[in-house]
C-alpha cells in the first residue's frame, strides 16, 4: 500500500513490528499501543525512531506522556465511514501539540484526503495506487474552508473580515 | 413489503427473481439467465430454492458497474407469465399507485 508523504509517494521510514516479534536492531518501528504501553523504555532507548499504531476506540489522551518521544502516530480508519480518527487527529495536533508524523491507515481513500489533511494528518497509507498517484491533484479540490482546524488555513469568516478591512483601508 | 434492505439470510418461499437498479440512471432491472439485465420482468431468471437464489444474487452483486442494490424478490407465475409477488415489486414495475381511489 503506497505511503504518501509531502504530497507524493515515498518510502516508509518505519517497519511494522508485530506484538511478540523481535525489534530490529536499528531503524524506525511502528508498534501496537499494547507494546508501547507495556515497555516504553525498551522502545525509546533503541537506536531508531518509534511510532505507535493507536486504535480508534481509545482516548489519545493516554498517549500524552509519550508524545515527545514518538516520531510517528498511526491512527486507524477501519472503514472510511468510521470517522473517530478525525477527532483523535485534531486532539493530538491542536490540544496536545503533537508535531511528529501523523499517519492515516486503514481504508484510506482519495475522497477523504482533504478532510484528513485538515484534521492534521501528514502521512497516508493509501489503499489504492491510483489514489496515491492522484494525491497532489486531489488536495487542490477545495480552496474555501468554512471552519478553523489546526491546519492554519484562514476560514471564510476571517477571509471576509480581511477583505472588508482591506476595502475600507483603501477608502 | 418489509424492506428487503433488511434481508440477512437468503430464504425464499416460492419462485423468485433478482432485481436491482441500473447504475447510471436508477431504472428498475431484473437479472436474466444470460448474465445480463433487462427492464422486462418477463426476461428475468427464475430461482426456486435458496442455493439457486444465492448463486444468482452473488453473480448479480458482482456486477457492480451495471447495477446497484441487488436483492431477491418474490414473483408469481400465472400460466407462464411472471408477475410481481408483492406490492413493493408491483410498484417498482408499474410505477406509483397514487391516483387510485381507496376502496371505501
Amino acid at each position, binding site marked *: 500500500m503506497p505511503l504518501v508523504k509531502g504530497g507524493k509517494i515515498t518510502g516508509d521510514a518505519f517497519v511494522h513490528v508485530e506484538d511478540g516479534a523481535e525489534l530490529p536492531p536499528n531503524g524506525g518501528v511502528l508498534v501496537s499501543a499494547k507494546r508501547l504501553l507495556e515497555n516504553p523504555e525498551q522502545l525509546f532507548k533503541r537506536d531508531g525512531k518509534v511510532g505507535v499504531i493507536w486504535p480508534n476506540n481509545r482516548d489519545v489522551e493516554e498517549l500524552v506522556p509519550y508524545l515527545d518521544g514518538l516520531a510517528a502516530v498511526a491512527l486507524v480508519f477501519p472503514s*472510511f*465511514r*468510521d*470517522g*473517530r480518527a*478525525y*477527532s483523535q487527529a*485534531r486532539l493530538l495536533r491542536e*490540544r496536545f501539540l503533537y508535531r511528529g508524523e501523523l499517519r492515516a491507515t486503514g481504508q484510506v*481513500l482519495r*475522497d477523504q484526503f*482533504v*478532510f*484528513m489533511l485538515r*484534521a492534521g494528518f501528514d502521512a497516508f497509507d493509501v489503499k489504492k495506487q*491510483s489514489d496515491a498517484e492522484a494525491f497532489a491533484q486531489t488536495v487542490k*479540490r*477545495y*480552496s*474555501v*474552508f*468554512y*471552519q*478553523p*482546524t489546526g491546519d492554519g488555513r484562514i476560514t*471564510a*469568516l476571517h*477571509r*471576509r*473580515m480581511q477583505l*472588508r478591512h482591506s476595502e475600507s483601508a483603501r477608502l | *413489503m*418489509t*424492506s428487503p*434492505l433488511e434481508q440477512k439470510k437468503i430464504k425464499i418461499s416460492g419462485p423468485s427473481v433478482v432485481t436491482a*437498479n441500473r*447504475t*447510471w*440512471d*436508477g*431504472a*428498475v432491472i431484473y437479472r436474466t439467465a444470460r448474465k445480463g439485465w433487462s427492464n422486462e420482468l418477463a426476461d428475468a431468471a427464475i430461482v426456486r430454492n435458496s442455493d439457486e437464489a444465492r448463486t444468482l444474487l452473488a453473480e448479480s452483486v458482482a456486477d*457492480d*458497474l451495471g447495477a*446497484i*442494490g441487488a436483492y431477491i424478490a418474490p414473483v408469481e407465475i400465472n400460466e407462464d407469465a411472471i408477475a410481481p409477488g*408483492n*406490492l*413493493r415489486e408491483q*410498484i*417498482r414495475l408499474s*410505477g*406509483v*399507485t*397514487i391516483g*387510485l*381511489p*381507496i*376502496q*371505501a
Partner: protein
Amino acid sequence: MYAYDEIDRTLVNERVSEFRDQVKRRLSGELTEDEFKMLRLQNGVYLQLHAYMYRIAIPYGTLSSEQLRRLAHVARKYDRGYGHFTTRQNIQFNWIKLAELPDAMADLAEVGIHSMQTSGNNTRNVTSDQWAGVAPGEIEDPRIWSEILRQYTTLHPEFSFLPRKFKFAITASEHDRAAIKIHDIGLRLHKNAQGETGFEVMVGGGLGRTPFLGKTIKPFVHGRDLLSYVEAIMRVYNQYGRRDNIYKARIKILVHELGVEKFAQEVEDEWQQTRDGALALDDEVIEDIRSRFFYPAYEKLAHMPDELKKAAHDPHFEAWRKNSVFPHKVQGYSIVTVSLKPVGGPPGDATAEQMDALADLADKYSFGEIRVGHEQNLALPHVARRDLPALWKALDKAGLATPNVNLISDIIACPGLDYCSLANARSIPIAQELTRRFANPDTANLIGRLHINISGCINACGHHHVGHIGILGVEKNGEEVYQITIGGRADEHAALGALIGPAVPYAEVADVIEDIVEAYLALRERPDELFIDTVKRLGVEPFRERVYATR
C-alpha cells in the same frame, strides 16, 4: 435573504466539480458502489424504488424567486416536472439519473443552491422557523445563527463521518414552529437578564424506532460560544456514539445510555478546553453575517386598506384570508401560507408550473422571497395586506390557495412505499383519501386545528410520533396495516402520541380517522377546545372505545 458571496459560491462550485469527478469514477468502475454510496449520500443522492432521488438543501427554508425558478427548471429538465417539499425544509426530486446529476448540480450552483450533506452520516440542513425574520414577537432572526451554523458544519473535516445523521433546528419565538425538541440539537434563542443573546441547548431529540424528546443540557450558551459549544457536543458524539448498530447510533441513544447529567458533563469538560479558542464568535463576525441578510424596505401601510375592505364581500377570499394569512411584525403586511395540500393531491408536491407561478408572485408581492415550512407548505413572508386580494386570485388559479392550513386536511406525509425503498406501506394514498373525506371547508373549520402525520415506516420521516393524530404504516403478512396514535405534539409542548389500539388495514384507515373525529366532536367541552386539548384532558381511552367498539 442571505446573499452568497464569492467565497460561498466558490465552495459550492468546488463541490460540484468534486462530485462530477466522483460520478465519472463510479461510472467507469474505478469506484465501487461500496466506496461511492457514502459519497453520493453526502450530496443528497439516494436510491429509491424506481430511480435515484435527489434531495436539495433549502437552508433554513428560505428561497429567492430566482432559486425557485431554477428548481422548476431542474424539475422540467432532469425530472418529471414536479418536486416534493420535505419535513426538513428541503426539496426532493424522484426520477433523477445519476449520469445527469452533475449537470443538474451545476445548474443549481449558479443560483447558490447546493445539496451538500442532505444525506449521509453528517450534519444535515439546519432548519428553522419558516416565519423567521417576520414573525411578531420574535426575539431576533434565527436565520443568522442558522447560517453561522450552516457554514460551520459544511464540509467539517472532523464531523463528516459520524456514527449517524445529525440534525439541528433553531427557533427564536415562544411558539416553536421548528420542532426543535425532536432534533439531535435543538436551539432556543433567547436573551439573558443582561439582554445578551444566547441559546437553550437541547440534545438527543429524534423519532424513528426509539423516539425521544430533546433534553436541555445547558439553559444558556452565549451567542459567542455557540460554535465552540456545538463542537464539544459533536466531538463527544463522534468519539463515543455507537457504531456497532445503526439503530442505536444516534446521539439520542448516547444521551439515554449515559444519562443526561453525565452527557452534559462530558460536553462541559470538552468545552472548557476550547471555549476561548478559534471558534469564539466575536461581534464583528456575527455582524458580517447579519449584514449579508437583506430585509425589505417596508412601506408605511395601513392595517385596513381599501382593497381589503372591498374584497371582504367575497366569501371565498374571506375563507382563504381567515385561514392562510397571518400577522406580520410590520403593520400593513402579512405572512401568507401557501397550501401544497390540495384535495386529492400528494401532500407537499408542487409542479414546475406552480413553482414558476409562485416565483412570479413572490417577485410581485413578497420582495422576491419564499419560505418552506416543515409542514410541507410554502409561505410568502412579506405580503402587503392591500395586495392580498390580487395575490389570492393568482394563487387560486395556480391551485395554491386551498384554505386548509393547520386543518385536518393539511396533512404531513412521507413519500412512503410509492417511492421509498425503506417503506413498508404507502402513505400518500392515505393522505389523499383523507383530504377527500374532509374536503368540505365548513367541516374542516368545525373540527379546527388538527395535525395528521403519516409515515410509511418506522423511520418516521412523516413525524407521526408528534402528530395530533399519527399514522404509521407497517407490513403484516404481506398486507399494509396502520397503527394510529393520538396526542402527539411537535411544538414547545412537544409530546409523543399514544397508540389507540391494534393496527387497521389500509381500506379502513380513513374510516378510523372519521371515527376519531366524531368522538372528538362529541367529547369536546366547547367548540373552541382543540382536538389536542380534548385528548390531553380525557386521555386515549374514550377514543379507543369508540373506534374499536365495532372493530
